């Protein structure tokens, strides 16, 4: 081992650890590009949790029963909790929450584009849980084995809660589909709006995803975008059939040879347009976050000022 270390460069030693599936921890040496990629990915994930509170938060005050209100509020609160663990995981890489929030507010950092679509009916709470959280789980379960320790450990907890969220979303859909005709119509209408945007959550096609190869090599990422998208379709089409709903894609068809569903092409123009900021809610989602932060400034200042005064008084008393 000693001789090996003398021969190998730090980069080679780092890659050897990754290849042996040994976790990288905050104090370990790591290439700058690995650190930057992780900060970008984890903070983007944290921002998605934070912004993701808004479309569902939109229905907390209008939930149709006390039980649903309670579950929805608990779910959105979980998302705030996920944001906290993820910001903390990113901080172990040498950034700060203030810096990450500044990047979100300036538009430099991204968050998941799915949250730039509006939630228009109660069935959207079903679709967000069933489809959006379902897609998130497929993206996130492999991250429980990602190479960076703090991120992997945060994801174990996040995934457990997400799987509960997905079940509650499915259960909302099931209740609607077993209910009155107008409830079933509400469920179908919501599925029509959310299906394609959730397929976009896996990111661009593999040939248009230049970072995938490096991220796979670093074991930050373990499956390609297209692999995950296929898994999602294969998982969701039978669930939609079970609910008695129709996926809004005429090309969806079981392919016996591939043992997978064929499906139509995502509208990539729409994908890139929303990524660039032109989705229906991009502007208001970001504004809501900026406004909460700016209007909260005096509260944070007051808390700091009081803490400083109290520390000074205690120092005098001591």
């Amino acid at each position, binding site marked *: 081992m000693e001789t090996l270390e003398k021969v190998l460069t730090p980069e080679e030693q780092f890659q050897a650890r990754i290849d042996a599936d040994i976790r990288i921890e905050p104090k370990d040496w790591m290439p700058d590009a690995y650190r930057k990629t992780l900060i970008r990915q984890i903070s983007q994930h944290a921002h998605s949790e934070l912004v993701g509170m808004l479309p569902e938060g939109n229905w907390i005050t*209008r939930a149709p*029963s006390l039980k649903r209100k309670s579950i929805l509020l608990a779910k959105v609160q979980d998302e705030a*909790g996920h944001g906290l663990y993820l910001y903390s995981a990113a901080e172990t890489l040498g950034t700060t929450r203030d810096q990450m929030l500044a990047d979100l507010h300036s538009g430099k950092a991204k968050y998941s584009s799915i949250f730039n679509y509006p939630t228009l009916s109660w069935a959207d709470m079903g679709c967000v849980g069933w489809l959006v959280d379902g897609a998130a789980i497929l993206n996130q379960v492999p991250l429980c084995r990602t190479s960076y320790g703090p991120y992997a450990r945060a994801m174990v907890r996040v995934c457990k809660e997400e799987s509960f969220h997905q079940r509650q979303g499915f259960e909302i859909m099931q209740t609607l589909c077993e209910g009155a005709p107008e409830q079933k119509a509400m469920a179908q209408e919501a599925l029509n709006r959310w299906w394609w945007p959730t397929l976009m959550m896996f990111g661009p096609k593999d040939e248009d995803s230049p970072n995938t190869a490096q991220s796979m090599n670093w074991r930050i990422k373990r499956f390609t975008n297209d692999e995950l998208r296929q898994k999602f379709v294969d998982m969701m089409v039978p669930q939609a059939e079970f609910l008695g709903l129709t996926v809004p894609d005429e090309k969806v068809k079981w392919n016996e040879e591939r043992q997978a569903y064929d499906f139509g092409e995502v509208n990539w123009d729409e994908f890139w347009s929303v990524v660039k900021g032109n989705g229906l809610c991009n502007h208001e989602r970001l504004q809501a976050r900026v406004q909460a932060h700016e209007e909260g400034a005096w509260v944070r200042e007051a808390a700091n000022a009081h803490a400083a005064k109290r520390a000074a008084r205690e120092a005098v008393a001591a």
Partner: protein
Amino acid sequence: MLTQDLSGTKAAAATEPSLLFPYVLQLADTSLILAHRLSEWCGHGPILEQDLAMANIALDLLGEARSYYQYAAELEGQGRTEDDLAYLRSAVEYRNPLLVEQPNGDFAHTILRQFLFDNFHYHLLRKLKDGPDAQLAAIAEKSVKEAAYHLKWSSEWVIRLGDGTDESRKRLDKAIATLWRFAGELTTPTAAETALQEIGVLPDYATLLPEMQAHTEHVFAEANVPLPTAVFAQLGGKTGRHSEHLGYLLSELQYMQRTYPGLTW
């Protein structure tokens, strides 16, 4: 259900569900409306940790409200459910005090509203948990632990805002000027509450006042804020005379049940 081993006062309550029903409904409405207001902050809090705290308090109050509504439905015995009681009554039928329906305003308003409510709620639950009505006592026993945390949270924030910056102090002063008049309703019994106090189901609110007052004095001293001297109490909510804010809140809260009557969600 009420327990069978009833003493004299317990028997009085047991034989008078018609007296208890409106009061339990009042407790339910109060916790629901405040939970609803707090939930409006969700995703918009001044800092992520406080966003979580407000959602958490809202969840506690919502859970407490549901227990009361379920008990009220049982007392009424007309087959209505918790959702019927929450979603299908109009503003004039709601029995929450005016304080809890007041809009969130800025964080200082929300904190002061919470502090005034928590200080009453916690001290009330401490008595109710030892009261003669077994079901109310059981709900209070569970909720008092949560209310103790709520009061700690809102008290610490009154202190931070009062003893923070000039701006936070100014905002807290403004909240006091707006909300203090609604505090008195909490401890001013309605005729229905007086009737329950007379048979020992409810504590005499005068017995809560010394501890409530002592806590307020302590918190305001820590916050370096003089205690307000105004004693005027704006009454009305507990007898169905609400501010204009409640109608808007209910139209949002009840939207789905009113739009799609009789469906299961």
